């Protein structure tokens, strides 16, 4: 087993993993960050997510789904991607108002 330390959203985390574990698997299985699957759509999703969060303060699920409608995810990870953007929006909103 290996011990790795990584910084996720400014938060330092240490995890113990099997050698040759893929980063996406670590993020998904041990960090509970399920917005990425095979990763093919991820760059476009990230660019769009940034744009959504710049234009909408704390976007609702309805807004996120409308705004994401141009992005295609082949492993139907939409639910988790929508949730991830919603969570980021809520977090930004908390930071903005505190």
């Amino acid at each position, binding site marked *: 087993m290996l011990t790795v330390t990584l910084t996720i959203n400014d938060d330092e985390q240490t995890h113990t993993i099997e050698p040759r574990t893929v980063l996406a698997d670590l993020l998904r299985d041990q960090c509970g960050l399920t917005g990425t699957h095979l990763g093919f759509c991820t760059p476009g999703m990230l660019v*769009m997510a940034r*744009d959504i969060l710049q*234009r909408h303060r704390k976007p609702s699920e309805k807004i996120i789904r409308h705004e994401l409608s*141009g992005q295609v995810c082949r492993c139907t990870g939409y639910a988790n991607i929508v949730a991830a953007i919603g969570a980021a929006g809520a977090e930004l909103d908390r930071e903005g108002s505190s």
Partner: protein
Amino acid sequence: MKSAPFDYIRPKGVAEAIAALQQENKTVSLLAGGQSLLVLLSLRVAPVDVLIDIGRIDELKTVSESATHVFLGAATTHAMIEDGAVPDPSLGLMPRVASAIAYRAIRNHGTIGGSVALADPAADWPACLMALDAQAVVRGPAGERRQRVTDFVQGMYTTSLEQGEVILGFEIPRLPRGARWGVAKVTRKSGAFASSMAFVIEGGEGAPARVILGATASHAQPMPAVADYLSQHAKIDETELRAAIAADLDVVDPETDAYQRRNHTATVLRAIREARA
């Protein structure tokens, strides 16, 4: 696929663009946002020898407003209209329409002038500008002219633009206070062109209703029987209204099939319901 080779010119102003359009024996096309044209070039369905990129000409991004009208330059993007970055003459109709055009990446680049110049039968802006009774302002070698969008768009991918002419923008009358609008479209795939779309504008200082149907086989067109019915009836009898819709459909989309007639009927009814809600 990739596009066939073409020459690319980026003129500094409208006068230079008009001059660049005067090329003998060559197929010349203006490029604005490129969200339709570049796809057509890549599919090699629109052969072009020379592409003239007018998307960055400041003159075409001019926006002005008066008490009665708003002028939007042809290179105004859908996103600018969606975001309220330009004045809205339409009591919210245009931002709503913009927000439902394809998806955001396209709206960032696609322009209102490009949409009308291409005159795709299912494009949103020709129908919307007809409903608002806007005028296209056009400049060419012979000078400037203006024409109602209803007359400017003449058929599938067909406008009254002559060789050498450039759309400068659109002069859009402000909807009077109290006017009501409704819009509905049927789009089976997210971001795809609509199978049907309808615009209804009613009321405001006693003006007659305007009803426009888009995504017909040819181009967006007024539905005068429905408009008359709405102007004359504060209370709707749905059987009579459907008869008026059927009468207009026989004229504006005569060759269409039963499915498409149902699509059209549904969008017109939904738009009316929204306008009267």
